[in-house]
């Protein structure tokens, strides 16, 4: 291991610098070739399964393509923005969109808040309690969304649900017998929120907890020696360490909560009124296969919305990437 050898190796390895000698140039070419070979399989699957349908979707959203065209093999007409205009003027879509956005905000705020609080709580617990809490959270997290909704739907069941029984017992009345939680859109959303928060908090809590563990103890100690109080310490010392993780979690929460499908769909089939409780995903699904042009327009709006919401994350990540 001579110093010169190490030096050569690291210069050739660091090819961010422009290659100068012909040898380095050919090496860079070879590197690029191997890199693209390694990327090949992933590029193919991403291109065919994401890129291609995305293009198709945009094109179709400007046509009146239906299942009839597909079966008969007749070409569809180009209708420009007609699908979009109809979507925003003649359908329930604007209401669904607002509902989805509102639900997303509520769910995201609750998930982040409760999740962070649980994470902080976990740092203050004794080992035994921490493990106990972790196991509970893990079980909630691990439950598949559909299974969770089925179980919660049963807990809130109109006739035999334990919630109605508990409320009856607490109030000492029989007011809650046969109370239907899913019929009214507001209590439908209440149940939905409980399910989603129950399932999402563990992810936020564990991720934040892991990030809290990365805060160096010496820095905290130094801060408390300098007389920083608990709240101040959290704000000035801990939070900067958490920021990047919390940003990622926040963006993921926004995306997941806006894309939510399974829980809403399953609750609707347990007695919710679909027309009054649809969110973007279930609305699109309930349009059904057939009107490819019209449904494509909904898809395009959804994609644009999500890209707009997550663009900040993409930019931040890229900036950190530059190094």
């Amino acid at each position, binding site marked *: 291991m001579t110093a010169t050898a190490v030096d050569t190796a690291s210069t050739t390895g660091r090819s961010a610098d422009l290659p100068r000698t012909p040898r380095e140039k050919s090496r860079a070419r070879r590197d690029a070739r191997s890199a693209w070979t390694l990327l090949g399989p*992933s590029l193919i699957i991403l291109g065919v399964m994401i890129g291609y349908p995305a293009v198709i979707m945009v094109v179709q959203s400007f046509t009146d393509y239906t299942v009839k065209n597909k079966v008969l093999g007749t070409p569809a007409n180009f209708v420009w923005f007609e699908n979009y205009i109809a979507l925003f003027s003649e359908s329930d879509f604007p209401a669904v969109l607002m509902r989805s956005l509102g639900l997303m905000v509520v769910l995201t705020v609750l998930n982040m808040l409760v999740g962070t609080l649980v994470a902080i709580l976990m740092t203050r617990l*004794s080992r035994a309690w921490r493990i106990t809490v972790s196991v509970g959270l893990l079980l909630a997290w*691990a439950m598949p969304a559909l299974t969770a909704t089925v179980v919660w739907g049963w807990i809130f069941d109109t006739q035999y649900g334990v919630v109605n029984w508990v409320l009856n017992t607490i109030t000492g009345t029989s007011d809650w017998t046969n109370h239907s939680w899913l019929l009214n859109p507001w209590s439908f959303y209440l149940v939905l929120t409980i399910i989603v928060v129950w399932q999402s908090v563990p992810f936020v809590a564990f991720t934040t907890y892991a990030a809290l563990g990365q805060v160096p103890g010496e820095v905290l100690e130094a801060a408390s020696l300098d007389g920083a109080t608990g709240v101040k310490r959290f704000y000035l010392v801990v939070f900067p360490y958490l920021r990047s993780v919390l940003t990622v979690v926040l963006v993921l929460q926004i995306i997941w909560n806006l894309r939510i499908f399974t829980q809403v769909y399953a609750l609707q*089939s347990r007695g919710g009124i679909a027309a009054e409780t649809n969110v973007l995903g279930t609305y699109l699904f309930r349009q059904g296969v057939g009107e490819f042009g019209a449904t494509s327009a909904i898809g395009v709006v959804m*994609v644009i919305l999500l*890209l707009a919401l997550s663009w900040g994350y993409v930019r931040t990540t890229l900036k950190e*990437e530059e190094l």
Partner: protein
Amino acid sequence: MSTNVSTQLGTIGVDDVLGEVGDTKTPKRRSIEARRPSAKKVATRTLLNIAAAIVFFCSIFPVYWMVNMSFTPNKAIISRTPSFLPLNSTLNNYITAWNREAAPGQTDFPHALLATVIVTVGVLVVTLLFAFLASVAVARFHFRGRRGFIIAVLIVQMIPGEAMMFTIYGMIDDWRLMNTLLGLGIVYTSTVIAFTIWTLRGFVAGVPAELEEAAMIDGCTKSQAFWRVTFPLLAPGLVATSIFAFIQCWNEFLMALLLMKGYNLTLMPWLNAFQSTSVSGAVNWGAVMAGSTLIAVPVMIFFLIVQGRMSGGLVAGAVKG
């Protein structure tokens, strides 16, 4: 009772066992008297432990209720007074869930399980292989188009698959892959691969290239150095990402609902068909709970085994530049 326990724990634990964050002490405070907790400290500890108990209870109750119901005879399930313990427990619900068709003409549990396992394993193998190669390319090579590829991967993570559900449906239909495990597997692979590339990239980048260079100086070729030095260090990353891919495939509902029919259903659409009332009118709730338990328990056991690596891995993947 829980207060009692927590106070006890509080007195034992106070100084050393406590959380690492926000609980720093200066060395001079670590004198002998400081080891005896003040009344205020005990009160805080008790409150914290009560909060922990509440969090634990809230997260565990639905899981408990599902398992409880799955062992409860149907007559007791549809009673106005819920039974909190499966006192006269029965295995009948499990037998029904295992044997009965989800609905007339729909698959039974064993076939749905088999279908799900096949799809999940297939997707895991293909995704890990493809994503691993791609992540090495992104983390270890500098080439024109690298930035473009990274942007593409990031954007794909943000694009909702469900927005394109009918376009993908049309494609799968055109390729005559409708209602096949291959078609479903291809769709799943495309939804997990971007995230997997991104996470694995973090792990590959986390292994210093100098280690490989040192091995090369010691006489390895570049690929030997990679396989002997870097690859073994990537094991945790591969485990973490495969867990995420596994969970996604196991739990996915929408595309499976859209693409699969009759005897080819995977577990989630099986459960959906099994609990929908439309066909016969009466739902066997005990069996639904038993089926739910059968679906959820493998994932839960898996989670409990690998938990430490998972969130750590996610943070590493998401944050490591």
